[in-house]
């Protein structure tokens, strides 16, 4: 049996682990176009802020020797589903005199029994004149992060365009290297379709404290250059802002070219069933590139998160090696740092997703709340603490936890496992009680008594 995995992101690595847990004889080939192979892509944000050195991005926990993976640094150019083969080019790095580097390409052809496409997604290019100038950057992989650090250390003023988590990572990362950072937003506040106004203001206030200059209702119409180098941006209102670099993060798009050319069924991503199979036999897809069926909504959805990518890769691997284990997509869940504030986002929190069974929104503050039996006492001294709950008829539908993360873990389980909150629902919505304290009390009661409400186990990576 020959397994071919395209893409060295976490989905590909998880698939290798899963295959090797079932099959220690089969050949595994890993084809990746990133010269650095597997490393922590989300960790690039902390590399930009100098919290970790570059070599720390590479985990030692993956035992390549034991997994016996044949690695090819190269690019797949074509999939031939009829012949069960792929064609591509193999890269060779040639080092010449005086540190000259040259990449030589050598074509190869490889047949497969099972193929996994885990090629991920890439940044959507900015559609503005002048994006090709030197000094305009996006962040996809380690090479980009290196370039951003290199440029940021040499520039005096940087402009960041975009929204979401990635743009804030760029803002913080560039700011940490020294230059003055101008953050341009199209709307009236940061990330308005997920965060509510208070949360956006908390983040923006924090950014201003760090010295970032915010511009609301601002759009770039042109990037200005001189001798191929960025010198500034022209805004829609005609003003010119001088800068030495422009970074953008306006979203990501799955890399679909290979799949489309091979005749796989695609929508916004590669469509897969719950076994991570595409419509072509023996071809699987996982990670950012896969559009997975969501049993809750009945639609196929895209995720761009590391945790689900790992789960999908793992299930794809199990199914490639002969099991048939369905992957059940969980609730969207992410923990991240927005302007230095640890933030948990669980479930349905965005305003665009508000539906009929959402009845009330609770706001709260968790400062006084530290009395769990297994309380996390090491994290203290947060100056911002904020909790927002989306309360449904019977269960909690979503939550945002900023700052103190003590409640984050209980809330995650209560939402994912759909714990019945009817006993405390009135108290949660009452203006006289602190929701955080009510929740703490309820969670303590749930975990100390064996309650049927906490039945389903949280997802675990078990050896099959």
């Amino acid at each position, binding site marked *: 049996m020959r397994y071919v995995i395209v893409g060295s992101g976490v989905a590909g690595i998880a698939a290798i682990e899963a295959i090797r847990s079932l099959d220690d004889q089969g050949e595994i080939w890993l084809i990746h176009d990133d010269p650095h192979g597997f490393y922590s892509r989300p960790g690039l944000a902390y590399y930009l802020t100098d919290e970790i050195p570059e070599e*720390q991005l590479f985990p030692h*926990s993956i035992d390549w020797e034991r997994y016996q993976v044949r690695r090819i640094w190269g690019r797949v150019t074509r999939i031939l589903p009829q012949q069960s083969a792929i064609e591509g080019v193999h890269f060779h790095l040639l080092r010449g005199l005086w540190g000259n580097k040259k990449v030589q390409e050598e074509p190869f052809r490889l047949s497969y029994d099972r193929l996994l496409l885990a090629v991920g997604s890439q940044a959507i290019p900015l559609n503005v004149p002048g994006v090709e100038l030197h000094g305009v950057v996006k962040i996809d992989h380690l090479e980009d992060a290196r370039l951003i650090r290199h440029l940021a250390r040499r520039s005096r003023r940087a402009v960041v365009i975009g929204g979401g988590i990635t743009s804030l990572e760029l803002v913080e990362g560039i700011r940490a290297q020294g230059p003055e950072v101008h953050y341009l937003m199209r709307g009236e506040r940061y990330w308005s379709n997920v965060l509510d106004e208070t949360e956006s203001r908390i983040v923006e206030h924090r950014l201003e404290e760090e010295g970032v200059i915010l511009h609301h209702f601002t759009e770039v119409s042109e990037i200005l250059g001189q001798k191929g180098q960025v010198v500034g941006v022209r805004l829609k209102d005609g003003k010119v802002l001088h800068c030495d670099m422009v970074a953008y993060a306006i979203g990501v798009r799955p890399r679909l070219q290979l799949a489309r050319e091979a005749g796989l069924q695609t929508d916004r991503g590669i469509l897969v069933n719950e076994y991570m199979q595409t419509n072509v036999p023996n071809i699987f897809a996982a990670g950012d590139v896969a559009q997975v069926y969501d049993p809750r909504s009945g639609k196929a959805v895209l995720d761009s998160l590391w945790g689900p990518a790992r789960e999908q890769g793992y299930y794809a691997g199990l199914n490639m090696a002969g099991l048939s284990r369905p992957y059940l997509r969980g609730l969207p869940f992410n*923990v991240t*740092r927005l302007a230095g504030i640890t933030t948990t986002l669980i479930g349905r929190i965005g305003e665009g997703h508000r539906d009929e069974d959402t009845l009330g929104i609770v706001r709260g503050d968790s400062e006084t709340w530290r009395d769990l039996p*297994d309380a996390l006492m090491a994290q203290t001294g947060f100056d911002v603490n904020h909790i927002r709950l989306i309360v449904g008829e019977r269960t909690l539908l979503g939550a945002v936890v900023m700052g103190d993360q003590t409640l984050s873990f209980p809330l995650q389980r209560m939402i994912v496992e759909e714990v019945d909150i009817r006993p405390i629902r009135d108290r949660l919505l009452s203006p006289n009680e602190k929701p955080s304290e009510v929740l703490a009390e309820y969670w303590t009661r749930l975990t100390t008594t064996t309650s049927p409400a906490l039945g389903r186990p949280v997802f675990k990576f078990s050896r099959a």
Partner: protein
Amino acid sequence: MTFYEEAKRRAVLVAGQVVPDTTRCVQCGICSFNCPMGIDVRAHAWRGEPVVNSRCLTCGQCVTRCPRGVLRFERISIFKEK
């Protein structure tokens, strides 16, 4: 920080072990980088195993530094209240 809080914090640290939540972890390696004893906390987080290592001081560096709240303290079973 009051004396009571500090005493309670110490008590938790002594009776606890560091437990990861794999679904939150992105393997950035901040935990391993900041561990004063050089324990590869990240490898434990990848496998979802508690940091059971005789060198672990339960100093809480990894728990505090983790940017995504992956790690938390949990009481070891021998210290569990009945």
